[in-house]
Each structure stands twice: as C-alpha cells, then as structure tokens.
C-alpha cells in the first residue's frame, strides 16, 4: 500500500516528475555516451598500439633489455615459434632481428629502428601488409627489399624502387652498410611510428649483422583476446625460464596508465553528473514535501508513523530514478551500440590525432560492467538525495501542519 501511494504520489505533479525524470535520463544518457566515446578512443588507441606496435607479449634475452647490444640474441628463436604457437590462446607469433641505424637516400640520412622480419609471420602479428599504400609487401623486389613508412619516405624524398642505404654496427662492432631497395611504403595511424621503423627480411639483416640465421632479438606474440594475457604470461614464463617474457602492460606502462587514469576520470565524471542530478532530486522532493505539509500532518495525526512517512518519501524518490535510470542507460546503450558499429568520423581533426597514434573514426564502447556500476551509482545517489527531504517530512509537527488547514 505504501509503495502504491508513493507510486501514485509521483504522478500528482506529472510535469514536475517528468521534468526531473527527463533530466535524469538525459544526464545519464549524455554522460554515459561521452564516457563511451572516450573509452572507445582510449581502447582503440591501446588496441592499435598493441596490434601495430607492441603485440600482447614480447620475449627477449634478459640482457637485451638492459643493453640493446645486438649480441644478446634469443638462440634458435625460429624453433621456439612453433612451441609458442601450440599455446591455444595465441593467435600469431613473429621473430625479429633489431638494430638501430641510419637510413640514407641521395638527399639525406635519418636515424631509424631497423626490424628484420619474416614477412609472412610478421604480417600475421601486425597486419603490416594492409598498411602498405604504395608498392607491395616483400613481393616483387627479390634482392634486399625494404618497407618504409610514408613519413620517412617523404623526408628521404624516395619512392618505390629507389635505393636506400642502411648503416649500422655489426656484431663485432664494425660499421656496416647495406644497399636496399624500397619495395613498399606503409602508413599506420601513428605517423611517429611510420617515421621511425623500417622493415627488411630477417635473413638479409642477419647476414649483414653477422647474426646466426635462426636467431632473433625479439619474439612478438599476439593473442586472440587480451583477457587471456595473464594465463599466457604464466605459461610462457614457465616454458622459457631463461628468457624475459613481458606483457604489453610491462613494456608500455604508459598505455597501462592511460587506461588507469581513464577509469579514474570516468568515476570523477559520473560523480559530478550524479551530484548535479542529486541536487535536482533534492530540490524537487523538497518541493513535493513542502506543498504536502497539511497532508503529511494529517497522516501523522491519524497515526501514520514516522518511519512509514520516511519510507514513503524515500520510495517516491527512488521510483523517480528507478524509471529514469534504466531508461537513460538503455538509450545510452542503443546509441553506443549504433556508433560502435558505424563509428564517429573525426577526420576533420584526424591530422592532429594521427600523430598521437589515434584513429580518425571513433567507435564508441563501454566495458559491460560499467553499465551496472552506473545504475548502482544512480540508485545510491537518489537514495542519498531522498534522505534530506524525508527527514524534512518527519520533522513536521502534526499540530503545526494541521493549523495551516
């Protein structure tokens, strides 16, 4: 009965209740959508960085991490690959030979990271082939082919089939140079990455470096699902006790930090929105209590206890958010789902974004658990907001309330 009265009471002033419910719906809708936008942007950024640059897991010789000397190789890295592939959560693996050097054209020279890769397995990990926009991916040029980023190509003023000389120190510390031919020019969403990284065939680089053919400096492991990271980390660490197995979180703590600070910002953001909504609710419910002073006085006079009156006002407030909270979230879910598929085109600003390694199309998304958390927070906020008006109601003295009749 009390719940029925409370329910009916919220419809006494339809306009007012609808206004407060609409503002809750809009607040939650907009707030959640904005969060999904920035979460979409963040997770895309992180996923791209994982996909194109870091991979989920990297394996090195422990000493290589301290001193990037080319002598610290993973011996027989190629043979480890098939073992890693047996782990069922693993999607792809690639072994790389790495060296810092200089890329020179007829015009100029620029410092670069040179990665010697097996074209096929590298493509399964980073999808590099798709990023090639001119020329091809290690297909037509047979002798010393080189894939370079668009930005670097522009700086070096080279085109496909032009010659680029790579200079670096070999294993014995001598300066070595090799003449390569630009086979393809690639473009990722991160132009800084494009400027810094060039790719050769691993056997070509190993030969010039004097590194044994099967050896490599780095093994990159891509998983099907980031959620499997801890499991695979455990398995690989156990499997290769002499090697250093690191997750992307360890390799790129800045990315981990981006996610962590995103979560904090998000909670702060929700709290601010809910605070604003809570004040709206307090205001509306105070009005509802004050205009019903006589009726509340009458109820106390005829024997309705204070806990019951308190509960009734609490219920009224709770109903307001019970209707509008889920509705706001449902609308948000729909919008987020829609823009998760169709994306939001930011190409007008994408010039700036791409130098940060961000995509120009943002696909909104939100971790599923967050919907439940937001809903819970809405309910908690509305209950907190209801306390003050409810206390106001029971503080009324029936004699005084009735005198007003």
């Amino acid at each position, binding site marked *: *009965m009390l719940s029925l*009265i409370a329910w*009916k*009471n919220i*419809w*006494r002033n339809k306009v007012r209740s609808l206004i407060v419910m609409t503002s809750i719906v809009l607040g939650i809708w907009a707030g959640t959508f904005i969060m999904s936008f920035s979460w979409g942007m963040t997770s895309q950024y992180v996923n791209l960085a994982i996909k194109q640059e870091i991979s989920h897991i990297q394996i090195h010789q422990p000493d290589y991490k301290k001193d990037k000397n080319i002598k610290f190789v993973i011996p027989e890295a190629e043979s480890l690959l098939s073992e890693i592939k047996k782990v069922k959560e693993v999607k792809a693996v690639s072994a790389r030979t790495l060296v810092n050097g200089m890329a020179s054209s007829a015009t100029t020279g620029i410092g670069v990271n040179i990665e010697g890769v097996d074209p096929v397995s590298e493509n399964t990990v980073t999808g590099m082939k798709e990023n090639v926009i001119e020329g091809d991916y290690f297909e037509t040029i047979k002798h010393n082919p080189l894939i370079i980023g668009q930005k670097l190509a522009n700086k070096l003023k080279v085109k496909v089939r032009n010659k680029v000389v790579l200079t670096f120190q070999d294993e014995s510390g001598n300066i070595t140079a090799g003449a390569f031919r630009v086979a393809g020019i690639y473009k990722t969403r991160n132009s800084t990455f494009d400027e810094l990284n060039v790719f050769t065939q691993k056997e070509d680089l190993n030969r010039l470096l004097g590194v044994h053919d099967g050896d490599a400096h780095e093994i990159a492991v891509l998983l099907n699902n980031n959620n499997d990271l801890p499991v695979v980390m455990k398995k690989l660490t156990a499997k290769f006790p002499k090697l250093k197995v690191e997750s992307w979180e360890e390799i790129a703590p800045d990315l981990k930090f981006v996610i962590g600070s995103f979560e904090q910002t998000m909670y702060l953001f929700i709290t601010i929105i809910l605070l604003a909504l809570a004040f709206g609710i307090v205001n509306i419910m105070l009005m509802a209590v004050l205009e019903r002073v*006589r*009726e509340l006085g*009458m*109820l*106390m*006079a*005829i*024997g*309705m*206890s*204070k806990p*019951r009156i308190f509960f009734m006002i609490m219920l009224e407030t709770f109903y307001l958010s019970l209707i509008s909270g889920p509705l706001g979230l449902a609308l948000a879910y729909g919008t987020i789902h829609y823009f998760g598929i169709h994306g939001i085109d930011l190409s007008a600003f994408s010039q700036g974004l791409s130098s940060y390694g961000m995509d120009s199309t943002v696909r909104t998304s939100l971790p599923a658990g967050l919907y439940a958390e937001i809903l819970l927070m809405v309910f908690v906020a509305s209950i907190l907001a209801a306390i003050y008006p409810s206390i106001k109601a029971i503080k009324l003295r*029936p*004699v005084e309330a*009735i*005198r007003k*009749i």
Partner: protein
Amino acid sequence: MAVIESIHLTKIYDEGPVKVRAVNDVSLKIEEGEFAAIVGPSGSGKTTLLNIIGGLDHPTSGKVLINGNDISELSENQLIDFRLHNIGFIFQAYNLIPVLTARENVSFVMLLQKRPKAEREKRTEELLKEVGLLDRINNRPSELSGGQQQRVAVARALASRPKFVLADEPTANLDSKSTANLLDIMARLNHEENMTFIFSTHDSRVIERARRVITLEDGHIVSDVQQTPHT
C-alpha cells in the same frame, strides 16, 4: 470511568510579544457514548483543547487521562501509535489522501493497524454504506463534493475502531444541507455504535444537535450544559 478526563489543563503560548492562555485551567470529563459540542467564539481555545485531548499537542500544565491513562507521559512516537489505535480524527479539510479512492482512504488506517485484509474490506464497505457513499467507493476525493469528502472522513475516523472521535469544525466548509446530513450520520453512529463524538463548532444549527454543549471563552469553560437535541 470517563473516556476522557482533563485535569486543570492549561496551554500557554509564549512565543509572541504577549503570553496567550489558549486553554486556561480546563477540567472536564467525557463519558462513553457522549455527543458533545465544544463551542465558543473564534480564538477561545477550541482547537487547542481538542488537539491536547487528541494527543497532538502538549499542555503547559495539567493532565489528560484517556480511559484513566495519562497520555502526557507518552513520547511523540508512542503518541502516534496511541492516536492510531484510540482516536478518530475529522478535520475541517484535507482529511483524505488525494491519490487514494474513498475505499482506499478508509481502508488505509486499518492497514496501518495491520488488520487482516478480509476485515478491512468488510468494515470499509460497511462504513461507506453507513455514510451513504457505497456508490462512490472507487472515487477519489477530488471527484467527491465537500460534504461527501467529510462523510468519507467520518467513515475513516470510525474505521480504526477508536475509543472516541474528535472533530474540529467538521462542517465549517459545508452548506446547510450537507451539514445536516453529516450531523445525521454522526448522530446515528453515536446512537447505533455508541461511539463518543466530541466536535467543535461555531454553527448554531450544529450546536442544536448536541446533547452536551461546553462553552469556552478565553480558554475557560464558561458553561457546560446537557440538552435535548433537535432532530
């Protein structure tokens, strides 16, 4: 034993610039089954006296005994519960919960008393029949006339099976026909159910219907007479 006994009841309002003795040394006994009017000019203390007797207000000094029990010893929360089980109230207006129907309004007090559903339904219908509103049972207060609303209030006041009913100017907002009708109903319930009624009024046509008339002036009882009521 008297249903209500007030002993040297005094209420002083000390808030304004002057002290107001709203009720001044009122000693009064009301027996079960009485049909008593409290009359007097505006400001004579009728409402204050009824509120104190009804446990809505505290006297400055003196005592109120209900069935021999001193209610001034009860806490505010105990008083709410006491009122729920012992007193029926009829106010001048705003007696009913606007969002509930006549039936629900009458049933509501019994619900607060946690009476079983079957009993609630039965008594609600009986009482609404008594006040002649069986056909308006599912109407909300806003769909009822002022007189009909007060009749629902009478039914509501009796629903809790109180020891007595206090009515502060129950007919103040009613026309003469509705007033007569309401008084008929109250008189009949007084007669048939032996329900004690104490009501305040200005209206001479209402005073005529009482069997006892207590007249207040400046918070004092100036006369207290039994009479044969007009019918």
